[in-house]
């Protein structure tokens, strides 16, 4: 998979072989050992506070996510899709966003949601089944989780067209749109159509592919012969390959891609090479398709361990700070857990009320019937 004929671009020079035990070459600013790596095209210059903030985000996100798994095991959630291992991809890209930017997530983007300051309870309500994850997504600039793989890429492409039509691009303060998807999504037609759209309309859209190596049980080898960041070039969209377990690198490349989008320079695709440490969801059994050696390989590349080492070595944070964050994470977890447990079942009317802006008479009649039936069951009378 030599890449020697590609013009010099802000992208990696080669590609790992499908087996995850090969060392991929990608944009990396922080090695797995916690050493700072120089890159010819990308750099990062945050304040000490911001560097510490990324650590806080990484740790709290990991702990809240672990609580999702725990709540599912305790029967409090129907399902939980863990992001364990993908924290750096989500926090780096999420923190690169500006307030005016809009996010189209898939369904594992708890970390991005955290970065956007949006109440995480919506994700837990969705997986508890107390609602469908509804929020005012327009005001939040963070859309609902998309369960149908790649469906959201087209919504993002359309929204980004609208941003450009509104004249909201072309300056350093322009708006950009980012859509999150996985490696499996790249096989879907919608993903490829979205790239066509973003390309031909030169939309301010960043595709952020978290290549976590697995679409449930299927590896990259069953999804593509040419990796997504290289396929993007075929759509006339720059592709960037980044170490998805390096929070500094994901921040740097996403900031750059978003800035190009907001300036009116069009779409990009970032492939963040990372790893899904947990099964696909709590319903999956990953031992059927991968082994402990592979997990060990990726444990050695843990995004938080390396970042913590670097912060300590640079003198940006000390043990006291790390302990403080652990304490805060514990508090966040307890608070969230209490709120999740307090989520009550919705009223029966909930399923009828929001289907249409203008409710048809037939649904109104069915709503009345359901209410009457429920009331009769509660008071023991027969509705007839």
């Amino acid at each position, binding site marked *: 998979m030599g890449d020697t004929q590609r013009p010099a671009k802000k992208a990696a020079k080669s590609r790992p072989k499908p087996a995850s035990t090969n060392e991929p070459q990608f944009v990396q600013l922080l090695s797995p050992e916690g050493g700072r790596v120089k890159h010819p095209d990308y750099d990062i210059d945050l304040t000490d506070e911001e560097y510490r903030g990324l650590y806080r985000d990484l740790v709290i996100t990991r702990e809240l996510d672990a609580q999702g798994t725990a709540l599912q095991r305790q029967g409090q959630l129907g399902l939980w899709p863990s992001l364990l291992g993908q924290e750096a991809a989500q926090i780096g890209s999420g923190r690169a966003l500006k307030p005016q930017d809009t996010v189209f997530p898939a369904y594992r983007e708890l970390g991005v949601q955290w970065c956007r300051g949006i109440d995480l309870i919506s994700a837990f309500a969705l997986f508890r089944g107390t609602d*469908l994850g*509804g929020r005012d997504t327009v005001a939040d600039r963070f859309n609902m989780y998309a369960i149908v793989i790649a*469906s959201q890429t087209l919504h993002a*492409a*359309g929204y980004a067209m609208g941003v450009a039509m509104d004249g909201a691009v072309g300056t350093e303060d322009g708006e950009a749109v980012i859509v999150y998807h996985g490696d499996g999504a790249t096989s879907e037609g*919608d993903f490829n*159509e979205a790239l066509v759209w973003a390309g031909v309309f030169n939309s301010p859209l960043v595709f952020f592919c978290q290549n976590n190596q697995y679409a449930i049980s299927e590896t990259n080898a069953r999804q593509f012969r040419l990796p997504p960041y290289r396929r993007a070039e075929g759509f006339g969209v720059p592709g960037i390959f980044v170490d998805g377990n390096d929070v500094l690198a994901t921040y740097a490349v996403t900031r750059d891609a978003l800035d190009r989008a907001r300036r009116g320079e069009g779409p990009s695709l970032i492939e963040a090479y990372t790893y899904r440490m947990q099964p696909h969801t709590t319903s999956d059994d990953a031992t059927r398709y991968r082994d402990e050696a592979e997990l060990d390989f990726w444990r050695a590349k843990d995004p938080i361990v390396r970042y913590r080492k670097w912060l300590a070595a640079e003198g940006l944070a000390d043990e006291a700070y790390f302990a403080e964050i652990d304490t805060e994470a514990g508090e966040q977890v307890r608070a969230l857990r209490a709120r999740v447990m307090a989520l009550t079942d919705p009223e029966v009317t909930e399923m009828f009320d929001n*289907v249409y*802006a203008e409710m*048809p008479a037939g649904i109104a009649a069915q709503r009345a019937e359901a209410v009457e039936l429920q009331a009769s069951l509660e008071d023991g009378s027969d509705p007839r």
Partner: protein
Amino acid sequence: MTTMSMIKGLNEGLRRVLEDQPKSLVMGEDVGRLGGVFRVTDGLQKDFGADRIIDTPLAESGIIGTAIGLAMRGYRPICEIQFDGFVYPAFDQLVSQLAKIPNRSGGRVRLPVVVRIPYGGGIGAIEHHSESPEAYFAHTAGLKVVTCSNPADAYWMIQQAAAGDDPVVFFEPKRRYHAKGEVDTENPGLGLYRARTLREGRTATLIAYGPTVDVAENAAKAAAEEGLDLEVVDLRSLSPIDWEPLFASVRKTGRAVVVHEAPGNVGIGAEVAARLTEECFYSLEAPVLRVTGYDVPYPASRLEDDYLPNLDRVLDAVDRSLEH
């Protein structure tokens, strides 16, 4: 009153939407420079610009999916799917996205998207250009499904569909595209989701929509010569169905025949028959009958006259009803 074709009615209706609604857009394959393969959008790009009359890439899922995103951004897209048989690549975006996102959002996000689809047979077209897929969409909560049968309805219904905040799948009977009719451009008359009784009668009720309205009316005229007094109702809206005029009609006539081009199996006619049976059981003198396309793929065009409900099949059904 002005006389115009259905194509002109749609074109003029769209023109009014674009004038009245600055956020409205027309998007689809060939809708801009060409004016659409049926010329429904003829001249619109010249008058409203390429940013509002958008020639899209050739990808139906992309058309609906990006329309959803545009609607999230505050736009009001009116999409064209070039032919009925080409809508299926967009099925997920229509059924799982457009229909469900407003509900998933708890009513906080509305998607005012209209999806125009020329449908039905009778024009001698090749495969995939003559289908009647309306039942798929009428079956999906979150979508509204309507169909016009004449130029006046075309003119007003497209405007009414574009004015609401719910997604509407708008079926246009392509074999009626060139038929002319009177259009009152001042008075909208009936609401979008209302059925219309086109002809009063006491013998039996013919229930039709879109391209078969004309078939039913001709059947009623022919029957009149034989002394049969048929009522004709144009459903206009397939989801929701405006039931009261149907119930009132069947309570009067005691007999009903539903006519549509789509296959009968699990079609609109089955729903109409079931509801009429539930609501008008003691008024019915005969089972509700259906005259529909056969339960086979749309045939090669040289056979379409045998496939499509026609005057003879409708009158046969009326006779069978009267035999009870």
